């Protein structure tokens, strides 16, 4: 009897799903290379957390749009006091968390206070450093007072690390994330996939997808067969390198090359000899052939940069010509620096394709001027420890993916060990300036100083290689922040 029941149910199910197939599909499987360590965007730096949850499950007061613009999210509108210090947010009403509890101003206060509190393990605690107080005016109004005016405050609130969580579920979000977004978390098969489904009674614009699965696919070698066999219908941001050619040729797929905020640099320890000599750094800059590097490490898709700034930013200046590829000049500079026979150094590479492949190419290019690099591959944990924290390195290759982060060069004890008072002055001034023309001018100055000083080898802006089924619409083309916003995604009929 039971057996029959199963058969009937199965048949009914098959019928149901075949009729469903007539209409547009409402499910999507996306491949991503790294698995999030947990699912709480307010308690970890891993980009993979935001790539699953940002805008889908969790929402902030503001959010970042597909072109990097600041959009209202849970805050329907806001006013800013004349001195630029007091922000009053008007919140949407009728918003519910996925566990059924109501969202109101107290949740906003809780989330912001938690993120900046003493025991906070928020990975971007600095975003909230300017906040002085957060006050609940009424259930749908929040007043945030800053210690000093901050031009980027609304942008900061749009980061994944600033999403609004509920006091009851904040501690369990790592395992079972509860947000206010259009998708709710369904299941996490560790090491394999994370499934989101449409949330009932979403406050905002309705979404087209019923179900989205993020499948963990560790590398391009596995991603290509998964895509070609149809197991996965989208790889929103996946470095496929030379293998991209075979996907491009296939009409079933759409390949979209977009921009990211990732300035890829040959990070240089500016205090460690011989890199403390400007001439040595200039020699290295002259020895690098960006064209060959971009072809070999990104399949020709990266955009060359001459300083630490994104080429699609309006304040960008093209400084790639500061130290053109010129081996004779490079050797000359080495000789002037007292190193006519070159020298030996190490190159520590984190476990990402652009670094590992780029490293091999850089090592080969520097060998031409007698600089012999020993390649040391490291895992991220070792990289963070050895290179970033202990500054025990000569050279490394890494992409700095935080948007608008030229100010890192002004930070004390940052791992480049770069310290230039003139540059710091520009950044200080920038922080106090809100006039856009003036800011652009200062940004240009900052870029030029870094380029002239050859602080790092400035290599290329990391491309965002998105591949998806030709019938899928609405995925982000560019990557202004690391996210896979699925709210506008649908299958074309």
């Amino acid at each position, binding site marked *: 009897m039971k057996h029959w029941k199963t058969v009937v149910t199965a048949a009914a199910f098959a019928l149901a799903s075949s009729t469903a197939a007539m209409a547009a599909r409402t499910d999507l499987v996306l491949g991503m290379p790294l698995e999030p*360590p*947990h699912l709480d965007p307010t308690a970890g730096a*891993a980009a993979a957390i935001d790539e699953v949850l940002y805008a889908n499950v969790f929402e902030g007061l503001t959010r970042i749009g597909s072109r990097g613009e600041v959009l209202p999210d849970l805050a329907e509108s806001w006013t800013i006091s004349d001195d630029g210090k007091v922000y009053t947010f008007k919140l949407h009403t009728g918003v519910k968390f996925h566990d059924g509890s109501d969202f109101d101003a107290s949740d906003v206060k809780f989330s912001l206070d938690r993120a900046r509190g003493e025991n906070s*393990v928020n990975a971007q605690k600095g975003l909230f450093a300017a906040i002085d107080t957060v006050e609940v005016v009424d259930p749908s109004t929040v007043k945030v007072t800053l210690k000093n005016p901050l031009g980027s405050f609304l942008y900061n609130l749009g980061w994944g690390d600033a999403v609004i969580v509920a006091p009851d579920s904040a501690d369990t979000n790592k395992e079972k994330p509860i947000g206010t977004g259009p998708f709710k978390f369904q299941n996490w098969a*560790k090491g394999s996939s994370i499934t989101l489904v449409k949330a009932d009674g979403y406050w905002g614009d309705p979404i087209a997808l019923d179900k989205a699965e993020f*499948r963990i696919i560790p590398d391009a*070698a596995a991603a290509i*067969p998964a895509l070609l066999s149809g197991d996965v219908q989208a790889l929103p941001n996946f470095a496929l390198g030379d293998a991209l050619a075979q996907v491009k040729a296939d009409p079933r797929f759409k390949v979209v090359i977009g921009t990211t905020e990732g300035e890829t640099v040959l990070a240089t320890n500016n205090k460690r000899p011989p890199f403390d000599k400007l001439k040595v750094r200039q020699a290295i800059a002259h020895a690098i052939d960006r064209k060959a590097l971009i072809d070999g490490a990104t399949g020709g898709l990266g955009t060359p940069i001459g300083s630490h700034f994104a080429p699609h930013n309006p304040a960008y200046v093209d400084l790639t010509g500061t130290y053109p590829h010129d081996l004779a000049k490079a050797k000359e500079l080495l000789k002037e620096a007292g190193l006519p026979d070159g020298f030996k150094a190490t190159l520590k590479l984190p476990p990402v394709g652009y670094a590992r492949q780029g490293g091999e190419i850089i090592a080969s290019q520097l060998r031409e001027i007698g600089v012999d690099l020993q390649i040391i591959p490291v895992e991220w*944990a070792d990289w*963070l420890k050895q290179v970033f924290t202990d500054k025990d390195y000569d050279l490394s290759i890494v992409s700095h993916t935080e948007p608008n982060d030229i100010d890192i060069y002004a930070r004390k004890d940052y791992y480049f060990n770069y310290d230039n008072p003139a540059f710091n002055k520009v950044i200080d001034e920038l922080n106090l300036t809100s006039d856009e023309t003036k800011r652009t001018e200062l940004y240009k100055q900052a870029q030029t100083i870094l380029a002239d000083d050859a602080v790092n080898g400035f290599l290329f802006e990391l491309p965002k290689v998105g591949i998806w089924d030709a019938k899928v619409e609405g995925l982000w083309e560019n990557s202004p922040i690391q996210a896979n916003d699925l709210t506008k995604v649908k299958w074309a009929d």
Partner: protein
Amino acid sequence: MTAYLLKRLLIGMVTLGVASVVVFLMLEVVPGDPARLMLGMNASDAQVELLRDQMGLNQPLVVRYLTWAGGLLSLDFGKSYTYSVPVIDLIKERLVVSFPLAIIALTLSTLIAIPVGLFAAARRGKAADTAAMAVAQVGVAMPNFWFALLLVYVFAVWLRLVPAGGFPGWGNGVWPALKALILPAMALALPQAAILARVTRAALIEVLSEDYIRTARAKGMPMRAVLWRHALRNAMIPVLTIMGLQFAFLLAGTIIIENVFYLPGLGRLVFQAITQRDLIVVESVVMLLVAAVVVVNLLVDLSYAVVDPRLRTRQ
């Protein structure tokens, strides 16, 4: 026999104890800080220190060893640094992939190897034997990850018969799950089958040269009957030994195959944990695998007695 098994049991336990110390100490010297890894480049040192406290990383070495080893005894493996869930849960989730995979691979390997071994032994020295053993030689020499790549491109990308990788979970039906395990099992099984076929053949040939078999043959018993009824049974000891070793190997040795097929098994778990410095997971999984080897060895010892009753009294 009982005394012998008791001795083996004792040895197994000592092995586990020593292994736990070795594993723990080895991972102590691993560079890299799991707390810094979780918080990333923008967190301050004070924040990292706070998280280290919360994770219990600032306790003395001996305390941490005893906590961990004590936990192992009660199957409480502690909490994963990265996933912040009990390690035992992670292991359970992964075992439902790795264990069936190892079983399927071993079954496949046995089903191929024993008949081939029998066939080759029966035709010893003839062309068929030479050909079978030549193929086996190639099978032994084949790097399994390379073989796996070839399988993916033929069966998944080209013929589209099975998925290229990943695992849908047993919750979505047995057949899709089995389908996902077919290629990895083949990639694992064939090199193992090649080894096992060679062992089977060699063991059979050794048994066939013994007097009682010659007598049986002389009495007119057909070769096939001799092989199945007498020789195979007596050749089982080396075959079982190798199978035991292979099962242990398959449970752990799937690490690279799991990477090729991105299967969420134990091997991937431990590989990922090593790179993420989730040391407590690495320690626990390695200990579990060591324990598996010890148990399998005990079972093999025990099975000798079942296969060959003479051994029961010999000790």
